């Protein structure tokens, strides 16, 4: 149960920082997402993000910084195993599930559903 509380607090805090950036700067949501994923890669590479993941679980992996973290982690691990080739394959491989799911479900949604006007 304690894990869920930690996930809630850390995940919520990461989102809250994003909202503060949205409201107080001219950054668009796309730029914030790019910033989050890049920050995740950097923090992951520097070894700062792993303890946060250890602490908060999904609270740290579900936000896009977690996406960046797992890209960096995958690339580094693959370099250990395969050398320079791993730098090219490791990151994407570690996130392939999420990306492939987005493509498949995105495609299916576009076949099944039609956008509706906002009210």
């Amino acid at each position, binding site marked *: 149960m304690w894990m869920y509380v930690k996930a809630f607090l850390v995940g919520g805090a990461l989102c809250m920082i994003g909202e503060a950036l*949205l409201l107080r700067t*001219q950054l668009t*949501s796309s730029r914030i997402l790019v910033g989050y994923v890049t920050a995740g890669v950097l923090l992951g590479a520097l070894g700062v993000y792993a303890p946060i993941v250890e602490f908060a679980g999904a609270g740290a992996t579900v936000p896009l910084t977690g996406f960046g973290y797992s890209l960096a982690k995958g690339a580094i691990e693959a370099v250990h195993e395969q050398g320079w080739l791993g730098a090219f394959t490791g990151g994407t491989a570690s996130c392939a599930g999420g990306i492939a799911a987005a493509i498949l479900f995105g495609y299916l949604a576009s076949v099944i559903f039609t*956008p*509706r*006007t*906002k*009210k």
Partner: protein
Amino acid sequence: MADKRMGAQTVALPSTPRLAAWSAIVGPKEGEGPLGACFDRVETDDMCGQESFEKAERSLFTSCARLTLDKAGIRPQDVHALLGGDLLNQIISAGFAARQLGIPFYGLYGACSTMAESLALGSMLVDGGHCARVLCATSSHFSTAERQYRSPLELGTQRTPTAQWTVTGSGSALVCEANAARDARVCVTHVTTGKVIDLGVKDANNMGAAMAPAAADTLLAHLQDTGRDYADYDLIVTGDLGSLGRELMLELLRREGRALPPERSVDCGMLIYDASQDAHAGGSGCGCSASVLCGKLLGQLACGELHRILFMATGALLSPTTTMQGETIPSIAHAVVLEHVGKEE
């Protein structure tokens, strides 16, 4: 020629071309707004029975134009020119509608100022004796504008407090020679052509602020050219400045020493939705000023409730490309003077 020009930007129309008929058709959200009862038709579905939003907007444009012609009892082949435009790339709503209507067509792009631009040009064509009947029309659609200028409809984003809501709607008016429309109760007497003004606003979600200086500039030019004062008008009607834009315009005018009394200033963007409709700063789009003018104001002029108004639609001449390239937003405002015509004895 010289006797029709007044000052730098204004033209007088001595023959006072008449507005013989007009109509406004809007979407469901506009129908639920405070002016819902004023419009000729409120669509129950903003797809208007079409397969795409673009086709829906085109159908609004076409049916609104046809309705105006029906009211005036005129066939499309008797109209000498259709002046129209919209917000979409290559003004496809107007162009494709003109293909169906079969009226000689000039496509206009003035962003949200299109209704005033078409009325200005149409009245001048009629006053100059080049056309006897000109149809002025424009349209906009929330969902077509959204996908072209902003984001996909299903994207979960928040709108900023200064953002405006593109009106789904179309307005059209038929300009006729005065002697051919003796029953017409509204005429156009002056036209003031706006200059493109840019005071450095970059935020595409704050178009009211971008357009306010253009509105103030055209209004001051109009007063200067005609020697008139605010007291000569029942209302100074701006197109879609929204609440912030209107406030900024009033402030600019005050700083220029020509403070406009707030009770004489109305903004179509603030009339079309009420606070509960979550439109933030107000309505926008070509269809905003067009539907409010053709749905409400022209009727008030015709019955004498209003005697003379300055209709000044504003437009932000930006595109998604210029926004991405970090450019500021150039804006324009055109003004036409509309007057009530009393019954002849």
